[in-house]
């Protein structure tokens, strides 16, 4: 059912309430968006690029007693190779395991043990390669308990276990977080997605230099302690994903949504790949990508660019520029045929989902798709009502688990129905609604509300320095940080003509993936 919205709708909705207080004058216009002479989304981000290629971005908030600090590295799932899926995420875990000065009680004693572990791992890899025809997985898929082995492999593994135990005596777990916490750090997190890895902390302004000390160390001197124990943490995280009924379905949808890009690989990766990770491979990723010229530092809070430049130079300035890391060269081919998935499940409510490939961040069409989501949802609701179908509508641009990509993405329209018999009618109503958008039949109030909702959500992001710093760093790794402002303005500039043009161009059958979730044993299944 269509809801009356915006000014007229709000007035109607509130009409039955007592009159508002006569003295209301509370709103003032001091917010950044309203300052004369500024662009609506002007963020006053200041940039400094050091001689070694390190990029520094500062958004000054004078008087703020805290600083949101983030370090973004331009690498992630896109840089993995088949058989090593999830290696970037795993590297993030390993980078919490300390350095030569943090995480050890005696590096002098530990270092030779680490060298022996690397040698033993070389022997293990040789043993695995030798036995490749004996231990290859046969018939058991994605099981972390896969245990085929040979005597030579076991000898090598036992040697590594013994060496790791000896090295663990010198371990000082938790040290990469401990000092942040001791000095008032909050919100310590790390995240790896397809296009970036980041570490972040929010610190008192007096202690921002601690971030530079720890992260400069983490970038250069990582020691991959508790390698096999941490491998099992990935297993735990993956099992957590798989406990959710929707995970296998959404991953299957992603798998047929694209052909060449690792963007469409499962976010939780394949447990069988976890067993393939080696210290040598992780070290290669680390040394290749964690270099100054592949790094962006973002600070928001009570610091200025002038203050940060010498501090950053003190801790990162001596690090030499490295060769440019290799990039993912996968280019998604132009879709040429509709693809369909039928997923049978009694745990998921019946649903139909239609996805279309859309451009990633940085393409001029991309901002309008954010608005499209707000316009399409009520249009689909009206279409369902006209068809007599009860359903819940969800619209998003999520691929795997995130909604923004500097590479091709998808726009997803989903209708969840109570009765599987309604699936065909729901799909028809959904596609009919998208056709009306392509014809320019766009509700003006829907369009205005969609833009207002996006603006309001953006204000919530700006109000949270950590969230804003993430957006800035993420846009830098996806495209350029400057694109963020263009993206926000592009959303505001979206008109009904833009929506119609994009719907007509992108929501076409050959660019479509349709997924249907049905009960495991319904009539359709039996046919």
């Amino acid at each position, binding site marked *: 059912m269509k809801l009356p919205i915006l000014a007229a709708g709000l007035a109607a909705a509130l009409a039955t309430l007592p009159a508002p207080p006569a003295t209301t004058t509370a709103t003032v216009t001091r917010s950044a968006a309203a300052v004369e002479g500024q662009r609506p989304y002007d963020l006053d981000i200041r940039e400094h690029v050091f001689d070694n290629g390190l990029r520094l971005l500062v958004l000054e908030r004078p008087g703020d007693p805290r600083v949101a600090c983030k370090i973004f590295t331009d690498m992630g799932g896109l840089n993995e190779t088949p058989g090593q899926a999830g290696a970037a995420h795993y590297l993030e875990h390993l980078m919490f395991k300390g350095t030569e000065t943090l995480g050890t009680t005696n590096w002098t004693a530990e270092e030779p043990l680490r060298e022996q572990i690397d040698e033993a791992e070389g022997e293990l890899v040789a043993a695995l390669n030798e036995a490749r025809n004996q231990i290859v997985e046969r018939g058991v898929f994605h099981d972390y308990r896969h245990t085929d082995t040979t005597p030579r492999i076991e000898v090598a593994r036992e040697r590594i276990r013994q060496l790791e135990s000896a090295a663990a005596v010198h371990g000082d777990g938790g040290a990469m977080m401990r000092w942040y916490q001791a000095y008032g750090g909050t919100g310590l997190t790390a995240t790896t997605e397809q296009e970036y890895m980041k570490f972040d902390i929010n610190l008192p302004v007096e202690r*921002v230099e601690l971030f530079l000390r720890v992260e400069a160390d983490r970038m250069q001197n990582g020691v991959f302690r508790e390698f096999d124990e941490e491998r099992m943490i990935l297993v735990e995280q993956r099992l957590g994903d798989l406990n959710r009924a929707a995970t296998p379905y959404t991953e299957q949808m992603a798998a047929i949504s694209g052909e060449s890009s690792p963007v469409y690989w499962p976010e939780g990766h394949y447990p069988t790949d976890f067993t393939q990770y080696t210290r040598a491979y992780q070290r290669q990723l680390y040394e290749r990508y964690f270099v100054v010229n592949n790094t962006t530092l973002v600070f928001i809070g009570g610091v200025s660019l002038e203050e940060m430049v010498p501090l950053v130079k*003190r801790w990162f300035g001596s690090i030499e520029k490295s060769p440019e890391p290799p990039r993912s060269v996968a280019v998604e081919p132009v879709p040429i045929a509709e693809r369909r998935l039928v997923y049978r499940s009694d745990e998921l409510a019946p649903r139909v989902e239609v996805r279309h490939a859309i451009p990633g961040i940085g393409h001029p069409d991309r901002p309008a798709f954010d608005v499209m989501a707000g316009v399409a949802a009520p249009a689909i609701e009206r279409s369902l009502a006209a068809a007599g179908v009860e359903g819940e509508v969800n619209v998003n641009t999520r691929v795997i688990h995130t909604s923004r990509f500097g590479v091709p993405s998808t726009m997803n329209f989903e209708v969840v129905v109570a009765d599987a018999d309604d699936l065909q009618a729901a799909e028809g109503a959904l596609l009919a609604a998208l056709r009306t958008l392509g014809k320019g039949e766009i509700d003006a109030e829907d369009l205005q509300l969609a833009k207002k909702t996006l603006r309001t959500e953006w204000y919530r992001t700006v109000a949270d320095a950590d969230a804003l710093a993430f957006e800035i760093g993420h846009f830098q790794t996806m495209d350029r940080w400057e694109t963020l402002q263009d993206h926000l303005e592009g959303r505001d500039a979206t008109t009904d003509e833009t929506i119609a043009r994009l719907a007509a161009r992108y929501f076409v059958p050959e660019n479509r993936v349709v997924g249907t979730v049905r009960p495991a044993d319904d009539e359709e299944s039996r046919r």
Partner: protein
Amino acid sequence: MRRPARISDRDPARGAVRATGPVALVGAMILPLILAAPSATFAQQQELTHPRAMELDDVAWKAPDPAPLRLQLDNGLTAYVVADNLVPLVRLTALIGAGDADAPGGAAYAAALRAGPAAMRPGRFEQALTAMAARYDVAPQHTETRVTLEVPSEDVTAAVSLFSSLLRDPLTGAPPAGSGSSASDEATGESGPVLYEGSMDVAVMLLERAVYAGHSYVGARDAEAPTDAPASAPVSARSFANRFVVPANVALAVSGDFNPAAMRADLTSAFADWSGEAPAMPAHPLPQRAARREVLTYNVDKLQGWVAIGHELPEVPTANEAALLVMNYILGGGHFDTRLFLATRDRRGLTNDDSGFPEQGFRGPGLYSFRTYGRPEVVRLLIHLTLQEIERIRTEPVTEEELFVARGALADGDTSLWFRNGAATATTYAREWLRYGDHTRTSTWWQRVHAVTADAVLAAAQRYLDPERMRIVVLGPLDAIRNAATLEDEQALEEYER
């Protein structure tokens, strides 16, 4: 930045090498690090003074004075009004000093708040929220209820009016939200039926039910189960509202992009004619103490098992609060450097999380729970290690370094979150005022945390942790959990009973 922090005694630009901080400035604790020989593998000029040797400056920030922020109306309503002009948003939060355990109707009242003001026709409230791009949330607890409405500042006039109507006269009669269930949600339980939603929350809910069986905390919710709701909810919600939701039992937290004088005038206009007698608030007793440790098992066909271990937490006097939180921070404070994390995750790779949650009650006891989960073959070892670490902190003093870190985290870290923006500041002060009528706790927090000693931590552990009478809820594939091979010293599941 007020002052640049002083770093080491050597300027890297002049060729200092790694890990060469001045020994004179460094405690014995980090001496081994200083003695570590620099490696030739990495950048020659990289300086890596140990963080404790960096001599980072003290934090100069102080919490804002609450008095100028407070608005006190003649009818007893208190509001904290904090201008925050960073973005054009306004947030209105009402903290109501009564919750679902105080009387029948608490849950129905929360449902009424979700439905909107009585003066609006059904559905109109949702339309109004949509049109304002608002965020709206109702969070009922046992002895308090929180309502939050956040809107763009262009809609503040309508929002204040809506919020006033909502608080004073909500649409009673709406069924409690989120209380329905379906057959597919049910899993078989060895200790009773269980609604399974696939998260740690279910195990904690089962733990609370066991700890508070027969108590008002659980009894009130059960009395308003879905089958009872249609007939009794309107009356009991109205009765609850009339009795408890009165100006003297509500504190408002108002923040955002406005002129504070104008907002104070608006709030006065919107709420000054609201009346009601200050209620006598019930006190909630401790539950029946468990005589022994008990294992409660619930079978679900999932890939992992969830564990919640704990017992009641009595009301914590102000004098003990800091020591309790420092102790929990060291034991299981939800970060990567806790004893539980190091024992179960870091060194063994058993779980993604193992943490302690001392949830303090107000006008009654709370719940102290430890929560973890993992693949079936490690669940018994997780229980074993969790109990072992609980016992260790009750018997061994914490180290100086653990104390140093915990004090800094709680005094300089957590405190900043209470005041991180206008909304947080207003809510922190409103909640404190509603509960205590003054601001002693926030104003003395930093000093209280820094006064905590190792002896005080030990005493807090002994006072608030009793592993011998904790309930252990295990939710997961029980056969796989029971039949898993022994990895270390863990026992059979039922052997953890006492």
